[in-house]
C-alpha cells in the first residue's frame, strides 16, 4: 500500500475514524492500530507478516530478559545474542545473495571455484528500518532509557506502527513507548501540522519527484553514454532533487499520519542542501538514521574520544556500514566511503570560516551530487560511463526541457523557504474554523491530483 494512492487514503481515513472513536480505550485503540499495521504490511506480501511478528516478539522477549537481569557477563551475552538475531535476520534477507556472490568470485580468482548455495531471496519491505528499531529497543532497555516491562502489545506496535514501518523515520523505543502508556489527546495545532505535512509530502513526491524521475533521471541513468553533458549534469541535479523530494515526502507523510493519530515522531529532514559542511549535511539528511548510527555505532566504537586516528577509523566504519545499510552493493559501500572521507577531511581542515560559507555550501552540494551518481547507478561501470562519457557540454540537449529544468530549480528552491514555515503555517491554520481548513485542504489536494502524472512509482527507500 503506497502512501500517495487512494487505497491508502481510504485505509487511513477508516483507521483515523476508528482510532479516535476508541480514544477512551487505550488498549483497544492500540490493538486496532496493530491490526491496521499488519493489514498495511500484508498488503505487499502477507507472508512477511510472520517475519515482522517474529522480530517483534523476539525483541520483546529479549527486552524482558535483559531488563530483569543484573549487570553480568550473562546479561552481556544475552544482549549480544539479541543484536545478533536482529542482524542475522537482516543479513540473511538483505546480504546473503551479495555475500555468496562475492565469495564465489573471490574463490574463482584464486582458482578455487565452488558451487555455492545460491538462493533467490525476496527482500521484505522495510526490513532495514524495523530491524534497526528492534536493536534500538534492546539497547535502550540495556541503557535503562526504555522500560523493559512494556507489554507485548506495546512492543509489537512500536516495531510495526504503520506510518513508519516501511521507510522510517527510525523511531526510538525511548521516544515512542512512553507515548503508548495512555490514550493520546489531540490539539488543533497537531492536526494542522499533520494535514500540512501530508499535503506537502504528496506534492513533493507526486509532482516534483515523479516528473523529474520519469522525465530525465531514469532515461539518463539507464544509458548515460547516449546523452550529452547538459543532460547528464541536470540528471544528477535532478536525482539530488528527486531523492530528497521522494524520501523527505515519505517522512513528512509518516510524521503527518502519526500526528493525526496523536503520536509524535521526530523530524527526519531539515533542508539538507543548505548544509555548509558534511557534518551539517548529516544533521539535516535522514536525521533518524544518522543519529541512530551516531548513538548505537559511532559512540560505542569510541566516538571522538581516542585521538585523530581512532576518530577517523570510527567515522569510516560508521559511514561504510551506513552506506551498506542502504543496499547490498559495492556502490553503496563506496558512497559511504566518499561521505566518510569527506567528513574526515573536514575534521582535519577544521571548521569553515563564515566568510566562506557560500563556497562551502556549493562544494558540499556538489560532492554530495558526485556521491549520488554512485548511489543511483546500478554498478560501477554505469557510474564510470556517467562520469567519463565523451560528450561535452556543447552536445545537443535531448531530454532536458524548460519544464524539467524548472522542476529541478523548484526542488532546490524549496531549500530557500523559511526553515520552520510549515510550523508557522500550522499554528495559523489551527485558529481557523474547520470548513476553512477543509476548503484549503481540498484545493491543495485537487491541485496535486491534477498535476501529478498517472501512476505512482514506489518510494526510492522501499528497496532499502
Amino acid at each position, binding site marked *: 500500500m503506497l502512501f500517495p494512492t487512494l487505497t491508502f487514503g481510504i485505509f487511513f481515513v477508516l483507521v483515523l475514524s476508528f482510532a479516535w472513536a476508541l480514544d477512551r480505550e487505550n488498549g483497544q485503540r492500540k490493538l486496532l492500530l496493530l491490526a491496521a499495521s499488519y493489514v498495511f504490511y500484508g498488503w505487499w506480501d502477507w507472508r512477511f507478516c510472520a517475519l515482522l511478528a517474529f522480530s517483534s516478539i523476539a525483541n520483546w522477549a529479549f527486552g524482558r530478559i535483559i531488563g530483569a537481569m543484573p549487570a553480568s557477563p550473562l546479561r552481556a551475552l544475552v544482549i549480544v545474542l539479541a543484536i545478533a538475531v536482529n542482524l542475522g535476520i537482516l543479513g540473511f534477507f538483505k546480504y546473503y545473495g551479495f555475500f555468496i556472490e562475492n565469495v564465489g568470485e573471490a574463490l574463482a580468482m584464486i582458482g578455487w571455484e565452488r558451487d555455492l548455495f545460491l538462493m533467490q531471496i525476496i527482500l521484505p519491505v522495510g526490513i532495514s528500518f524495523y530491524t534497526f528499531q528492534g536493536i534500538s529497543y534492546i539497547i535502550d532497555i540495556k541503557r535503562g532509557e526504555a522500560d523493559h516491562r512494556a507489554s507485548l502489545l506495546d512492543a509489537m506496535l512500536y516495531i510495526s506502527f504503520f506510518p513508519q514501518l516501511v521507510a522510517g523515520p527510525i523511531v526510538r523505543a525511548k521516544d515512542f513507548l512512553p507515548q503508548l502508556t495512555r490514550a493520546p489527546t*489531540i*490539539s488543533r495545532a497537531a492536526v494542522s501540522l499533520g494535514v500540512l505535512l501530508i499535503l506537502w509530502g504528496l506534492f513533493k513526491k507526486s509532482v516534483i519527484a515523479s516528473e523529474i524521475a520519469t522525465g530525465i533521471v531514469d532515461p539518463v541513468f539507464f544509458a548515460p553514454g547516449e546523452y550529452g553533458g547538459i543532460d547528464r549534469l541536470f540528471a544528477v541535479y535532478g536525482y539530488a532533487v528527486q531523492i530528497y523530494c521522494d524520501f523527505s515526502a515519505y517522512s513528512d507523510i509518516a510524521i503527518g499520519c502519526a500526528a493525526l493519530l496523536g503520536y509524535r515522531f521526530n523530524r527526519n529532514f531539515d533542508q539538507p542542501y543548505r548544509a555548509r559542511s558534511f557534518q551539517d549535511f548529516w544533521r539535516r539528511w535522514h536525521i533518524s538514521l544518522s543519529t541512530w548510527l551516531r548513538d548505537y555505532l559511532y559512540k560505542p566504537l569510541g566516538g571522538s574520544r581516542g585521538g585523530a586516528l581512532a576518530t577517523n577509523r570510527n567515522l569510516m566504519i560508521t559511514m561504510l556500514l551506513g552506506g551498506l545499510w542502504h543496499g547490498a552493493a559495492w556502490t553503496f559501500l563506496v558512497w559511504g566511503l566518499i561521505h566518510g572521507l569527506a567528513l574526515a577531511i573536514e575534521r582535519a581542515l577544521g571548521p569553515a570560516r563564515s566568510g566562506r560559507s557560500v563556497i562551502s555550501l556549493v562544494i558540499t552540494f556538489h560532492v554530495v551530487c558526485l556521491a549520488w551518481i554512485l548511489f543511483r547507478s546500478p554498478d560501477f561501470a554505469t557510474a564510470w560511463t556517467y562520469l567519463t562519457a565523451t560528450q561535452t557540454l556543447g552536445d545537443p540537449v535531448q531530454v532536458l526541457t524548460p*519544464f524539467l529544468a524548472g522542476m529541478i530549480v523548484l526542488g532546490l528552491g524549496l531549500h530557500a523557504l523559511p526553515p520552520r514555515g510549515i510550523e508557522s503555517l500550522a499554528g495559523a491554520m489551527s485558529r481557523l474554523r474547520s470548513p476553512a481548513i477543509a476548503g484549503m485542504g481540498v484545493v491543495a489536494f485537487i491541485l496535486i491530483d491534477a498535476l501529478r502524472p498517472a501512476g505512482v512509482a514506489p518510494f526510492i527507500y522501499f528497496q532499502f
Partner: protein
Amino acid sequence: MQDDPHRDRLYEAPDDAREHQRSRLWLSNGVALSLLLVAVFNPVSLERWAAANPPNWGVETVRLTVGVWSERMGLAHLDAPRLWLEQRWRDLKAVGWDDVHTEDDEAEQ
C-alpha cells in the same frame, strides 16, 4: 525525543478533556467536509482508482456509480477548475527550448 521548539509547541496536548473533544470534533468535521468537497469537485480521482484496480463486484460498482456521478458533476461544470489546471500543466510541459528562445528573441525585438 530531540528538542525541536517549533514543533514541540504544536504537539502540546490539551489537559482539559473538553478541549480534546473540541479538537476531535474539529478534526472529524474537517475530514467529513473534505470528503464531501472531493466527491463534488474531484470524483474523477475515485473513478481512476476504481479503473486501476482488478475488477470485481465492489470495484465495478464503485466505478460505475462514480462514473455517473462524475459525469453529472461535469455537466454542471464543477470539474472546470481541474480541467483548466490539467490543460495549463500540459501546455507547460510541451514548451521546448525553441519556444523559449523565440519568446526571448521577440522580447529583444
